[in-house]
């Protein structure tokens, strides 16, 4: 296990390097110096801040030197200071990550809890009305634009019927609440974002689960199980399901970047103070340090997601021994 982690770490380092290069390049796509535009639009930036920034980026030095300087700082997890409010970038990001992660985790949990049964039952009842209905449902899920869904939910559930709050994560009187009330309040605020986030991912997982289950059901060992006289539900939910779930585990890990990217939309619409919204605000304000920081952190989270997916796959499938894989 240790050897595997070590080998993986080397591969990851290469990836990280690549990520930093891309991130760095993205910022320097903009014509002119990174500070120009932002100094023009944002009168709050004082002379000292501008000089600090110029120093931070060594803007007079050649590009590759700038990159190395930035890389060194990045290795110490120092992403610099935000242009907008002069706070350390890392701090701003760390404040926002928990919220985004919470929403993501809940979404993933729901996607699994709802999507997997839908996929399994669709496969078992292949060709039936239920299957066709689920197929349509899934296609609809794929096609609905997240921001439209958010808007409609916001309009009807939030504005017109006033059932759920539509802005932020805490009510105005939050501080006065008791512990339980605080939890409830937070949950009520999170319902709509989680709903929107789940809806998009549901389609993918259930479809994938369905085809995985269908292909497992064609295997010989299912025929053996039937010939042994096992109960139908044992055959489906013990023999077939465990095999069918294996590839789905990987898919979950791979869906992390999609979920993070999607967070921009609903966090902006529902005013959730998460990473997506931070990114959007920073982009609009040309707050380069934050932009770079979030890009890198987002990529790292994705890498972690993939790593986790690989490890869980190996843990679940007895045929895979970690040391054999790179």
């Amino acid at each position: 296990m240790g050897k595997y982690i070590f080998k993986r770490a080397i591969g990851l380092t290469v990836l990280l390097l690549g990520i930093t290069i891309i991130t760095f390049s993205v910022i320097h796509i903009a014509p002119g110096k990174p500070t120009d535009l932002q100094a023009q639009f944002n009168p709050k930036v004082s002379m000292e801040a501008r000089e600090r920034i110029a120093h931070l980026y060594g803007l007079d030095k050649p590009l590759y030197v700038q990159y190395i300087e930035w890389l060194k700082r990045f290795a110490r997890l120092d992403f610099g200071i935000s242009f907008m409010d002069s706070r350390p970038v890392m701090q701003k990001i760390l404040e926002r990550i928990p919220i985004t992660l919470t929403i993501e985790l809940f979404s993933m949990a729901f996607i699994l809890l709802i999507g997997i049964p839908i996929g399994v039952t669709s496969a078992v009842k292949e060709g039936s009305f239920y299957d066709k209905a689920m197929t349509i449902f899934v296609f609809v899920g794929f096609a609905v634009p997240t921001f439209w869904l958010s808007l409609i939910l916001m309009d009807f559930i939030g504005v017109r019927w006033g059932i759920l709050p539509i802005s932020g994560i805490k009510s105005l009187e939050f501080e006065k609440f008791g512990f339980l009330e605080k939890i409830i309040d937070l949950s009520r605020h999170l319902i709509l974002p989680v709903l929107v986030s789940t809806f998009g991912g549901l389609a993918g997982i259930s479809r994938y689960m369905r085809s995985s289950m269908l292909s497992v059901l064609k295997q010989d060992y299912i025929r053996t199980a039937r010939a042994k006289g096992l109960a139908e539900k044992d055959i489906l939910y013990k023999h077939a399901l465990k095999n069918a779930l294996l590839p789905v585990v990987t898919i979950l890990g791979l869906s992390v970047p999609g979920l993070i990217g999607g967070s921009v939309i609903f966090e902006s619409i529902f005013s959730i103070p998460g990473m997506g919204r931070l990114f959007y605000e920073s982009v609009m304000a040309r707050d380069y340090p934050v932009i770079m920081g979030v890009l890198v952190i987002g990529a790292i989270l994705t890498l972690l997601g993939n790593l986790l997916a690989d490890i869980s796959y190996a843990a679940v499938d007895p045929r895979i021994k970690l040391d054999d894989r790179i």
Partner: protein
Amino acid sequence: MNKLTIFGICIVGFFLIIAVFAPMIAPYNPGQIDIDNILTPPSGQHIFGTDSLGRDLFSRMVYGTRISLMVGFIAVGIAALIGVALGAIAGYYGGWLDAFIMRFIDIMLCFPTFFLILAVIALLEPSIINIMVIIGATSWMGIARLMRAEILSLKERDFIYAEKAIGAGSSRIIIKHLIPNAMAPVLVSITLGVAGAILVESSLSFLGIGVQPPTPSWGNILSEGKAVMGAGWWMMIFPGLAIFITVLGYNLLGEGIREKLLK
């Protein structure tokens, strides 16, 4: 052919016709401002109602079709060009070139795509061309992998050896023989990619960094809709429906092509 696929083809065709014949279909000039008729609900005169500047929503949406489809096709076209080229090169030549390209793909896939697109668009100016290029430049990875996989399996086939035996050069082999035979699964990706590109463009326009008003795009009409929430349901429903149906159409078509290919 599957009923759903036929439905998809109909949808795709429908919107194509609207886009092509937009000037003939739209009853009003999409930019025509009419202060007397601000935010009127759907009526005989304006079947989709009017927006906050009195412009006919239906006409704006008809022209918006042009934008969405154009962005969709060109963005995917760019993605396909990059993806097919890189995938074919990686698959055919192998070795360090392959390793390098695959690593590059892995790195690109680490970023939440939408973040990258947002960042680049905001840093450059949000013109339609930029949008098309950046969407294309961030969605080629899947196509590249597919192409590479197909090429890897195709290049060992006899007809390729035959070509080599008669002295055909590498680029000729790749372009004339390998790529056309490998296109099948890529076609599915391309079709689904159009749906994705339309979604991204409308999301960007909604956020204000896509197609800029007064050019109508379904996305930026929706963002107007958000601003007048509660006062103009037609501003929210119709553009969203349009996006939804179009994306659905391309998804159904793509899945239909995939079913056909899996035979």
